[in-house]
């Protein structure tokens, strides 16, 4: 390599680095706004100080936001924790069968499942409301299926089957079939083979699915707004109501938005690489 090419290479390196840093700044602007605004007292809520750091830092907005949002946060926990665990269990069983215990027509079935991943949920929402109202009437459990957390969990678990099945199936395909065959020769049935061979190595796939489902359930707004009522509103609906009210100062809106995002952000920071794999699975890339 000649000296000129080398210098050009170095310039290119620094340009690349500079552009990437520029985009980091752009990407972080909303975060700066969220944090800075949330710590401002009402006396500094003036347009001329919009981008300034607070002169007096206060957690007053955080306190009020927490009071308003807490019931929603709790509802979201009741929604996202059981929801993601149930999704995981179903996805694991389906993925196991569709990769290692296939039946005639399994491919067609899998394709039909996959379409369920891409349907816009608006297309089922109106009948779903009617179905859940019907289940309320049928069981005599008012406000459980429609207007309650259990109904919302049910909806998320069912519509989560495709993506969870896909992630587990693509993961289980990599387990050598001979291991299953060996267990079979030893007299193990389908469930024994699952417990002794497949389940012990499922850790990474379980992490991917739980994180993926937890994040989607926590962040969902569409199902929540159609299927829940004031006592069962999860975080996103409450957050939207808080921020949509004209009287809510920006500082409280921003504090509430951060509070609502903390659980998924923490998961992202701690378990980012599993999060990534979930994303990739979403692209049918396995």
């Amino acid at each position, binding site marked *: 390599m000649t000296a000129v090419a080398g210098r050009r290479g170095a310039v290119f*390196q620094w340009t*690349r680095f500079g*552009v*990437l840093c520029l*985009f*980091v700044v752009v*990407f972080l602007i*909303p975060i700066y*706004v*969220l944090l800075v605004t949330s710590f401002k007292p009402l006396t500094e809520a003036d*347009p001329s100080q919009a*981008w300034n750091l607070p002169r007096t830092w206060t957690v007053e907005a955080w306190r009020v936001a927490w009071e308003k949002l807490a019931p929603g946060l709790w509802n979201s926990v009741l929604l996202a924790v059981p929801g993601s665990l149930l999704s995981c269990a*179903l996805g694991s069983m389906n993925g196991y*069968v569709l990769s290692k*215990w*296939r*039946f*005639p027509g399994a*491919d067609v079935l899998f*394709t*039909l*499942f*996959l*379409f369920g991943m*891409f*349907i*816009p949920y*608006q*297309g*089922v*929402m*109106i*009948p*779903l409301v009617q179905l859940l109202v019907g289940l309320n009437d049928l069981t005599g459990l008012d406000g459980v299926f429609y207007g309650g957390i259990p109904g919302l969990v049910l*909806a998320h678990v*069912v*519509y989560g*089957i*495709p993506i969870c099945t896909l992630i587990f199936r693509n993961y289980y395909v990599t387990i050598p079939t001979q291991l299953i065959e060996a267990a079979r020769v030893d007299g193990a049935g389908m469930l024994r083979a699952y417990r002794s061979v497949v389940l012990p190595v499922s850790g990474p796939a379980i992490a991917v699915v739980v994180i993926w489902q937890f994040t989607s359930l*926590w*962040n969902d*707004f569409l199902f929540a707004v*159609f299927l829940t009522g004031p006592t069962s509103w999860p975080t*996103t609906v409450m*957050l*939207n109501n808080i*921020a949509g009210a004209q009287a809510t100062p*920006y500082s409280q*809106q921003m504090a*509430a*938005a951060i509070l609502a*995002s903390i659980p*998924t*952000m923490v998961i992202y920071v701690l378990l980012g690489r599993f999060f*990534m794999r979930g*994303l*990739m699975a979403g*692209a*049918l*890339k396995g």
Partner: protein
Amino acid sequence: MRRARTWLPGLLLVTPSIIAIGVFVYGLLGWNFQLAMTDKHSQVAEGEFVGLKNFVDIWDLPRWHLSVSHTILFTVVFVLGALLLGWLLAFLMEKGIRGEGTFRAIYLFPMAISFVATGIVWRWLMNSGTGERAVGLNRLFGYLGLPEWQWFRDQDWGMAAMALPAIWQMSGYVMALFLAGFRGVPEELREAARVDGCTEWGVYRHVVLPLLRPVLLSALIILGHISLKVFDLIVAVSGKQIITDVPAVFMWVAVFDSHDPAKGATIAAYIVVSVAIFVIPYLIWSVRKERTS
């Protein structure tokens, strides 16, 4: 064909999911289409079959025309913006760079946040106040000597502004897809092309880009279907305002404010069809490809 004894247990284990998907996905989709073909325009109406009347009549509503054209503008800006930005970031990082992990983490983290929270910040950023009353980006642009904008309140280009938060949220994802694609190109292939006298740009143009086509297709499908059903973001940024109306918001209004199930179902059916048109061929194609490989 293997004997039924070997595959029947598997089928039984999947049966609950088959029933659930059958009822909740296909059953309810069918129910929605059926509802869209009735005149059930109030909760108490009987709902007589009227064929495709609702699907035709909706084109008489000016609001429907608006929400369709809004979706088209939003989709074009969002998909192209996220693709270009995601590709650019991946291109810059492709050959490895100091602090790559940090860059990736920062570009990707918006994906972990809900569209509602994103909408709240961006509503502040894209506030249309100007001059003394300017906050957000207009205030920042004022400092920098750039022009002030109406952002999402602009009559013609509002939906292009609305695509900005969506680009912010999804371009990191596109970057991750492309980066995985770039890294999947075997170094020997590039080397071979260089030996054959290809310039770096030639290698890129004739070896790397063609191999990225499947990644590009995946990204297009994912961004496209997010875009056609966009709902949370619009609601969080501007609520039910006509100026940013899209079919998903229109449907919400039809159900909760107009109490017109047939109209809501018709809009929902249009959203499903618009997504299915390109997703079904893609799914069939990718399952076939997997089977042959």
